[in-house]
Protein backbone atom coordinates (compact mmCIF):
# COMPACT_ATOMS: atom_id res chain seq x y z
CA UNK A 1 0.00 0.00 0.00
CA UNK A 2 1.38 3.38 -0.94
CA UNK A 3 1.78 6.20 1.53
CA UNK A 4 -1.07 8.15 -0.01
CA UNK A 5 -3.47 5.20 0.18
CA UNK A 6 -2.45 4.83 3.80
CA UNK A 7 -3.38 8.48 4.45
CA UNK A 8 -6.75 7.98 2.74
CA UNK A 9 -7.36 4.98 4.94
CA UNK A 10 -6.54 6.93 8.11
CA UNK A 11 -8.94 9.64 7.03
CA UNK A 12 -11.84 7.31 6.28
CA UNK A 13 -11.21 5.34 9.45
CA UNK A 14 -11.22 8.40 11.68
CA UNK A 15 -14.19 10.14 10.05
CA UNK A 16 -16.51 7.18 9.46
CA UNK A 17 -15.42 3.76 10.62
CA UNK A 18 -14.33 4.87 14.09
CA UNK A 19 -16.37 8.03 14.29
CA UNK A 20 -14.90 9.79 17.26
CA UNK A 21 -18.24 10.73 18.82
CA UNK A 22 -20.51 7.84 17.96
CA UNK A 23 -18.11 4.94 18.27
CA UNK A 24 -15.38 6.29 20.55
CA UNK A 25 -17.57 8.52 22.73
CA UNK A 26 -15.31 11.54 22.81
CA UNK A 27 -16.72 15.07 22.95
CA UNK A 28 -20.05 13.80 24.25
CA UNK A 29 -20.71 16.68 26.63
CA UNK A 30 -20.94 19.26 23.85
CA UNK A 31 -22.51 16.71 21.49
CA UNK A 32 -25.50 16.15 23.77
CA UNK A 33 -25.46 19.63 25.31
CA UNK A 34 -25.37 21.85 22.22
CA UNK A 35 -27.28 19.92 19.56
CA UNK A 36 -30.67 21.26 20.57
CA UNK A 37 -29.55 24.36 18.67
CA UNK A 38 -28.47 24.12 15.03
CA UNK A 39 -26.45 27.36 14.96
CA UNK A 40 -24.56 26.46 18.11
CA UNK A 41 -23.75 23.05 16.63
CA UNK A 42 -22.31 24.63 13.51
CA UNK A 43 -20.28 27.19 15.47
CA UNK A 44 -18.91 24.53 17.76
CA UNK A 45 -18.15 22.32 14.76
CA UNK A 46 -15.97 25.00 13.15
CA UNK A 47 -14.20 25.83 16.41
CA UNK A 48 -13.43 22.19 17.23
CA UNK A 49 -12.22 21.44 13.70
CA UNK A 50 -9.83 24.37 13.78
CA UNK A 51 -8.43 23.77 17.24
CA UNK A 52 -8.12 19.99 16.84
CA UNK A 53 -5.98 20.31 13.73
CA UNK A 54 -3.71 22.99 15.23
CA UNK A 55 -3.47 21.09 18.52
CA UNK A 56 -2.56 17.83 16.79
CA UNK A 57 0.25 19.57 14.92
CA UNK A 58 1.62 21.39 17.97
CA UNK A 59 1.45 18.40 20.32
CA UNK A 60 3.14 16.22 17.70
CA UNK A 61 6.07 18.63 17.65
CA UNK A 62 6.25 18.71 21.45
CA UNK A 63 5.99 14.94 21.66
CA UNK A 64 8.67 14.22 19.07
CA UNK A 65 11.07 17.10 19.64
CA UNK A 66 10.97 17.42 23.42
CA UNK A 67 9.21 14.60 25.26
CA UNK A 68 10.57 11.57 23.40
CA UNK A 69 14.21 12.74 22.94
CA UNK A 70 14.52 13.57 26.64
CA UNK A 71 12.64 10.44 27.81
CA UNK A 72 9.92 12.48 29.46
CA UNK A 73 6.99 11.05 27.54
CA UNK A 74 5.82 8.36 29.98
CA UNK A 75 5.16 10.77 32.81
CA UNK A 76 4.95 14.29 31.44
CA UNK A 77 2.77 13.71 28.37
CA UNK A 78 -0.60 14.33 29.99
CA UNK A 79 0.47 17.46 31.86
CA UNK A 80 2.23 19.02 28.90
CA UNK A 81 -0.49 18.21 26.35
CA UNK A 82 -3.27 19.66 28.45
CA UNK A 83 -1.31 22.81 29.22
CA UNK A 84 -0.42 23.26 25.56
CA UNK A 85 -4.01 22.84 24.45
CA UNK A 86 -5.23 25.22 27.15
CA UNK A 87 -2.81 27.95 26.17
CA UNK A 88 -3.42 27.30 22.48
CA UNK A 89 -7.14 27.85 22.89
CA UNK A 90 -6.39 31.10 24.72
CA UNK A 91 -4.07 32.31 21.96
CA UNK A 92 -6.48 31.37 19.19
CA UNK A 93 -9.21 33.26 20.99
CA UNK A 94 -7.13 36.45 21.30
CA UNK A 95 -5.92 36.18 17.70
CA UNK A 96 -9.36 35.68 16.18
CA UNK A 97 -10.83 38.46 18.27
CA UNK A 98 -8.25 40.85 16.85
CA UNK A 99 -8.08 39.67 13.27
CA UNK A 100 -11.68 38.87 12.41
CA UNK A 101 -14.53 40.07 14.58
CA UNK A 102 -17.00 38.27 12.31
CA UNK A 103 -15.36 34.91 12.75
CA UNK A 104 -15.13 35.62 16.47
CA UNK A 105 -18.85 36.15 16.61
CA UNK A 106 -19.57 32.82 14.97
CA UNK A 107 -17.11 30.60 16.79
CA UNK A 108 -15.42 32.69 19.48
CA UNK A 109 -17.92 32.06 22.21
CA UNK A 110 -17.37 28.32 21.89
CA UNK A 111 -13.62 28.51 22.27
CA UNK A 112 -13.52 28.61 26.10
CA UNK A 113 -15.70 25.48 26.13
CA UNK A 114 -13.15 23.66 24.03
CA UNK A 115 -10.23 23.67 26.44
CA UNK A 116 -11.87 20.87 28.40
CA UNK A 117 -13.38 19.09 25.41
CA UNK A 118 -12.06 15.56 25.62
CA UNK A 119 -12.13 15.17 21.85
CA UNK A 120 -9.11 17.37 21.25
CA UNK A 121 -6.93 15.82 23.91
CA UNK A 122 -8.25 12.41 22.86
CA UNK A 123 -7.12 12.90 19.25
CA UNK A 124 -3.63 13.89 20.37
CA UNK A 125 -3.38 10.78 22.56
CA UNK A 126 -4.65 8.57 19.74
CA UNK A 127 -1.98 10.02 17.43
CA UNK A 128 0.69 9.30 19.98
CA UNK A 129 -0.54 5.73 20.59
CA UNK A 130 -0.47 4.99 16.86
CA UNK A 131 3.03 6.44 16.45
CA UNK A 132 1.75 8.51 13.55
CA UNK A 133 4.16 10.80 11.72
CA UNK A 134 3.39 14.49 11.32
CA UNK A 135 1.23 14.24 8.20
CA UNK A 136 -0.62 11.17 9.41
CA UNK A 137 -1.40 12.97 12.69
CA UNK A 138 -2.78 15.95 10.85
CA UNK A 139 -4.92 13.75 8.61
CA UNK A 140 -6.23 11.84 11.62
CA UNK A 141 -7.08 15.17 13.29
CA UNK A 142 -8.92 16.47 10.21
CA UNK A 143 -10.82 13.20 9.87
CA UNK A 144 -11.81 13.07 13.53
CA UNK A 145 -12.89 16.70 13.58
CA UNK A 146 -15.01 16.28 10.46
CA UNK A 147 -16.49 13.14 12.00
CA UNK A 148 -17.46 15.22 15.03
CA UNK A 149 -18.89 17.96 12.81
CA UNK A 150 -20.92 15.40 10.91
CA UNK A 151 -22.28 13.78 14.06
CA UNK A 152 -23.23 17.21 15.45
CA UNK A 153 -25.11 18.13 12.25
CA UNK A 154 -26.92 14.80 12.07
CA UNK A 155 -28.12 14.95 15.67
CA UNK A 156 -28.95 18.67 15.53
CA UNK A 157 -30.99 18.14 12.36
CA UNK A 158 -32.95 15.26 13.83
CA UNK A 159 -33.58 17.11 17.09
CA UNK A 160 -34.82 20.12 15.13
CA UNK A 161 -37.42 17.90 13.47
CA UNK A 162 -38.33 16.31 16.79
CA UNK A 163 -39.19 19.63 18.34
CA UNK A 164 -42.49 19.69 16.46
CA UNK A 165 -43.40 16.07 17.00
CA UNK A 166 -45.17 14.66 20.00
CA UNK A 167 -42.97 12.46 22.10
CA UNK A 168 -43.94 10.41 25.12
CA UNK A 169 -42.83 12.27 28.27
CA UNK A 170 -40.32 9.58 29.02
CA UNK A 171 -38.21 10.38 25.98
CA UNK A 172 -38.28 14.16 26.09
CA UNK A 173 -34.97 16.01 26.29
CA UNK A 174 -31.71 14.14 26.65
CA UNK A 175 -33.17 10.63 26.67
CA UNK A 176 -34.21 10.71 23.03
CA UNK A 177 -30.94 12.36 22.03
CA UNK A 178 -29.02 9.41 23.45
CA UNK A 179 -31.29 6.87 21.81
CA UNK A 180 -31.03 8.51 18.41
CA UNK A 181 -27.28 8.52 18.82
CA UNK A 182 -27.41 4.80 19.52
CA UNK A 183 -29.25 4.17 16.27
CA UNK A 184 -26.97 6.49 14.27
CA UNK A 185 -23.99 4.71 15.84
CA UNK A 186 -25.43 1.40 14.69
CA UNK A 187 -25.64 2.82 11.18
CA UNK A 188 -22.05 4.06 11.36
CA UNK A 189 -20.88 0.57 12.29
CA UNK A 190 -21.95 -0.34 8.77
CA UNK A 191 -19.07 1.76 7.41
CA UNK A 192 -16.68 -0.96 8.56
CA UNK A 193 -16.76 -2.42 5.08
CA UNK A 194 -15.19 0.76 3.69
CA UNK A 195 -11.65 -0.12 4.71
CA UNK A 196 -9.97 -3.41 4.18
Amino acid at each position, binding site marked *: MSYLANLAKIFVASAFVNNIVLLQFLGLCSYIGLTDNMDASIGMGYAVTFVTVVAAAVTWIIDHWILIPYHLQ*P*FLQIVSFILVIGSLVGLVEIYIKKMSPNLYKSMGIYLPLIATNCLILGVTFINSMHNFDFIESTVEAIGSALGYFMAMLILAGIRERLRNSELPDFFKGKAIAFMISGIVALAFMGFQGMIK
Partner: protein
Amino acid sequence: MNKIMKLTLVLGLIGAISGGTLAGVYKFTAPVIKAQDAKELQAGLSEVFPGNYEFKKLEIKLKSPDPAIQIGDVYTVKSGKNVIGAILKVSSPGDQAPIVMLVGINKDGRISGVKILQSLETPGLGANASNPHYYVNKAKKITFLDQFKNKKVTDPFVPKKDVIAITGATITSTAVSKGVKIAGEVAYSYFKKGGGS
Protein backbone atom coordinates in the same frame (compact mmCIF):
# COMPACT_ATOMS: atom_id res chain seq x y z
CA MET B 1 4.06 43.88 37.18
CA ASN B 2 4.70 42.61 40.66
CA LYS B 3 1.46 40.69 40.50
CA ILE B 4 2.30 38.97 37.23
CA MET B 5 5.66 37.97 38.64
CA LYS B 6 3.96 36.43 41.63
CA LEU B 7 1.43 34.54 39.50
CA THR B 8 4.15 33.18 37.23
CA LEU B 9 6.14 32.13 40.26
CA VAL B 10 3.23 30.27 41.82
CA LEU B 11 2.40 28.51 38.56
CA GLY B 12 6.03 27.63 38.01
CA LEU B 13 6.34 26.27 41.52
CA ILE B 14 3.25 24.09 41.17
CA GLY B 15 4.54 22.86 37.81
CA ALA B 16 7.92 22.01 39.30
CA ILE B 17 6.36 20.12 42.23
CA SER B 18 4.13 18.23 39.83
CA GLY B 19 7.04 17.33 37.55
CA GLY B 20 9.14 16.20 40.50
CA THR B 21 6.36 14.05 41.95
CA LEU B 22 5.72 12.43 38.60
CA ALA B 23 9.38 11.71 38.01
CA GLY B 24 9.45 10.02 41.43
CA VAL B 25 6.36 7.91 40.75
CA TYR B 26 7.72 6.98 37.33
CA LYS B 27 11.01 5.85 38.87
CA PHE B 28 9.05 3.65 41.22
CA THR B 29 6.70 2.11 38.63
CA ALA B 30 9.12 1.81 35.70
CA PRO B 31 10.89 -1.33 37.00
CA VAL B 32 7.55 -2.98 37.77
CA ILE B 33 6.31 -2.22 34.26
CA LYS B 34 9.56 -3.41 32.72
CA ALA B 35 9.52 -6.69 34.67
CA GLN B 36 5.92 -7.29 33.70
CA ASP B 37 6.62 -6.64 30.02
CA ALA B 38 9.64 -8.93 30.05
CA LYS B 39 7.58 -11.69 31.66
CA GLU B 40 4.80 -11.30 29.12
CA LEU B 41 7.29 -11.24 26.26
CA GLN B 42 9.00 -14.45 27.43
CA ALA B 43 5.65 -16.18 27.83
CA GLY B 44 4.61 -14.88 24.40
CA LEU B 45 7.78 -16.11 22.71
CA SER B 46 7.44 -19.63 24.04
CA GLU B 47 3.76 -19.65 23.12
CA VAL B 48 4.50 -18.69 19.52
CA PHE B 49 7.30 -21.24 19.26
CA PRO B 50 6.27 -24.08 21.57
CA GLY B 51 9.02 -26.34 22.73
CA ASN B 52 12.27 -25.96 24.57
CA TYR B 53 14.12 -23.38 22.52
CA GLU B 54 16.38 -20.47 23.18
CA PHE B 55 15.33 -17.02 22.01
CA LYS B 56 17.84 -14.35 21.17
CA LYS B 57 17.09 -10.76 20.34
CA LEU B 58 18.83 -9.52 17.19
CA GLU B 59 20.10 -5.97 16.88
CA ILE B 60 18.81 -5.53 13.35
CA LYS B 61 15.97 -3.63 11.74
CA LEU B 62 13.94 -5.36 9.06
CA LYS B 63 12.03 -3.17 6.65
CA SER B 64 8.37 -3.73 6.01
CA PRO B 65 7.12 -3.46 2.39
CA ASP B 66 3.87 -1.86 3.65
CA PRO B 67 4.09 1.59 5.34
CA ALA B 68 1.08 0.85 7.53
CA ILE B 69 2.66 -2.23 9.07
CA GLN B 70 5.68 -1.77 11.29
CA ILE B 71 8.19 -4.44 12.18
CA GLY B 72 9.72 -4.14 15.62
CA ASP B 73 12.04 -6.48 17.47
CA VAL B 74 13.39 -9.59 15.81
CA TYR B 75 14.27 -12.76 17.75
CA THR B 76 15.96 -15.88 16.49
CA VAL B 77 14.86 -19.27 17.73
CA LYS B 78 17.68 -21.68 18.46
CA SER B 79 17.63 -25.36 19.11
CA GLY B 80 21.10 -26.04 20.43
CA LYS B 81 23.32 -24.26 17.96
CA ASN B 82 21.02 -24.31 14.95
CA VAL B 83 18.71 -21.49 14.13
CA ILE B 84 15.37 -23.07 13.32
CA GLY B 85 13.22 -19.99 12.94
CA ALA B 86 12.52 -16.42 13.92
CA ILE B 87 9.92 -14.44 15.80
CA LEU B 88 8.98 -10.95 14.65
CA LYS B 89 7.08 -8.34 16.59
CA VAL B 90 4.75 -6.57 14.15
CA SER B 91 2.12 -3.93 14.55
CA SER B 92 -0.73 -3.71 12.11
CA PRO B 93 -3.38 -0.96 12.22
CA GLY B 94 -6.47 -2.43 13.85
CA ASP B 95 -9.91 -1.12 14.53
CA GLN B 96 -8.87 1.69 16.89
CA ALA B 97 -5.24 1.19 17.80
CA PRO B 98 -2.43 -0.89 16.32
CA ILE B 99 -2.60 -4.62 16.93
CA VAL B 100 0.81 -5.63 18.24
CA MET B 101 1.59 -9.30 17.82
CA LEU B 102 4.35 -11.85 17.83
CA VAL B 103 4.63 -13.99 14.72
CA GLY B 104 6.81 -17.08 14.71
CA ILE B 105 8.20 -18.33 11.38
CA ASN B 106 9.93 -21.66 10.76
CA LYS B 107 12.99 -21.57 8.58
CA ASP B 108 11.14 -23.46 5.85
CA GLY B 109 8.62 -20.62 5.53
CA ARG B 110 5.79 -21.92 7.66
CA ILE B 111 4.11 -19.94 10.43
CA SER B 112 4.69 -21.59 13.79
CA GLY B 113 2.28 -19.49 15.80
CA VAL B 114 0.80 -16.05 16.41
CA LYS B 115 0.09 -14.22 19.64
CA ILE B 116 -1.54 -10.84 20.12
CA LEU B 117 0.25 -8.73 22.70
CA GLN B 118 -1.74 -5.53 22.52
CA SER B 119 -4.97 -4.60 20.81
CA LEU B 120 -7.96 -2.34 21.25
CA GLU B 121 -10.59 -4.14 19.21
CA THR B 122 -14.34 -3.94 19.79
CA PRO B 123 -15.35 -6.35 22.58
CA GLY B 124 -17.53 -9.16 21.29
CA LEU B 125 -16.35 -8.66 17.71
CA GLY B 126 -12.72 -7.91 16.91
CA ALA B 127 -11.57 -8.71 20.44
CA ASN B 128 -12.45 -12.35 19.67
CA ALA B 129 -9.17 -12.50 17.76
CA SER B 130 -7.37 -13.15 21.02
CA ASN B 131 -10.24 -14.93 22.79
CA PRO B 132 -9.16 -18.50 23.58
CA HIS B 133 -12.80 -19.64 23.69
CA TYR B 134 -13.86 -18.23 20.36
CA TYR B 135 -13.57 -20.88 17.67
CA VAL B 136 -13.65 -20.20 13.95
CA ASN B 137 -14.00 -23.93 13.53
CA LYS B 138 -16.16 -25.17 16.36
CA ALA B 139 -15.95 -28.85 15.46
CA LYS B 140 -12.15 -28.90 15.65
CA LYS B 141 -11.87 -26.18 18.31
CA ILE B 142 -9.59 -24.02 16.21
CA THR B 143 -9.33 -20.40 17.38
CA PHE B 144 -8.79 -17.52 15.00
CA LEU B 145 -5.05 -17.43 15.70
CA ASP B 146 -4.67 -21.24 15.62
CA GLN B 147 -5.57 -21.34 11.95
CA PHE B 148 -2.34 -19.59 10.98
CA LYS B 149 -0.23 -22.44 12.35
CA ASN B 150 1.65 -24.25 9.58
CA LYS B 151 0.41 -21.92 6.87
CA LYS B 152 2.98 -21.17 4.19
CA VAL B 153 4.10 -17.55 3.90
CA THR B 154 3.42 -17.75 0.17
CA ASP B 155 -0.29 -18.36 0.82
CA PRO B 156 -2.57 -15.38 0.06
CA PHE B 157 -3.71 -14.77 3.68
CA VAL B 158 -7.01 -13.21 2.65
CA PRO B 159 -10.00 -13.45 5.03
CA LYS B 160 -12.97 -15.32 3.62
CA LYS B 161 -10.62 -17.07 1.17
CA ASP B 162 -7.89 -18.99 2.92
CA VAL B 163 -8.41 -17.40 6.34
CA ILE B 164 -11.66 -17.86 8.24
CA ALA B 165 -12.74 -14.36 9.33
CA ILE B 166 -14.15 -13.42 12.71
CA THR B 167 -17.87 -12.77 12.45
CA GLY B 168 -18.55 -9.04 12.19
CA ALA B 169 -14.89 -8.08 12.36
CA THR B 170 -13.48 -7.88 8.88
CA ILE B 171 -11.05 -5.10 9.80
CA THR B 172 -9.52 -7.08 12.63
CA SER B 173 -9.35 -10.28 10.61
CA THR B 174 -7.68 -8.49 7.71
CA ALA B 175 -5.30 -6.57 9.95
CA VAL B 176 -4.08 -9.69 11.71
CA SER B 177 -3.80 -11.72 8.49
CA LYS B 178 -1.86 -8.95 6.78
CA GLY B 179 0.49 -8.52 9.71
CA VAL B 180 1.19 -12.26 9.84
CA LYS B 181 1.71 -12.46 6.08
CA ILE B 182 4.15 -9.55 5.98
CA ALA B 183 6.08 -10.77 9.01
CA GLY B 184 6.28 -14.18 7.37
CA GLU B 185 7.47 -12.87 4.03
CA VAL B 186 10.06 -10.57 5.57
CA ALA B 187 11.45 -13.30 7.81
CA TYR B 188 11.47 -15.85 5.00
CA SER B 189 13.37 -13.60 2.61
CA TYR B 190 15.77 -12.80 5.46
CA PHE B 191 16.45 -16.51 5.85
CA LYS B 192 16.83 -17.00 2.09
CA LYS B 193 19.44 -14.28 1.98
CA GLY B 194 21.33 -16.28 4.53
CA GLY B 195 20.42 -14.27 7.61
CA GLY B 196 20.32 -15.93 10.98
CA SER B 197 22.55 -18.85 10.06
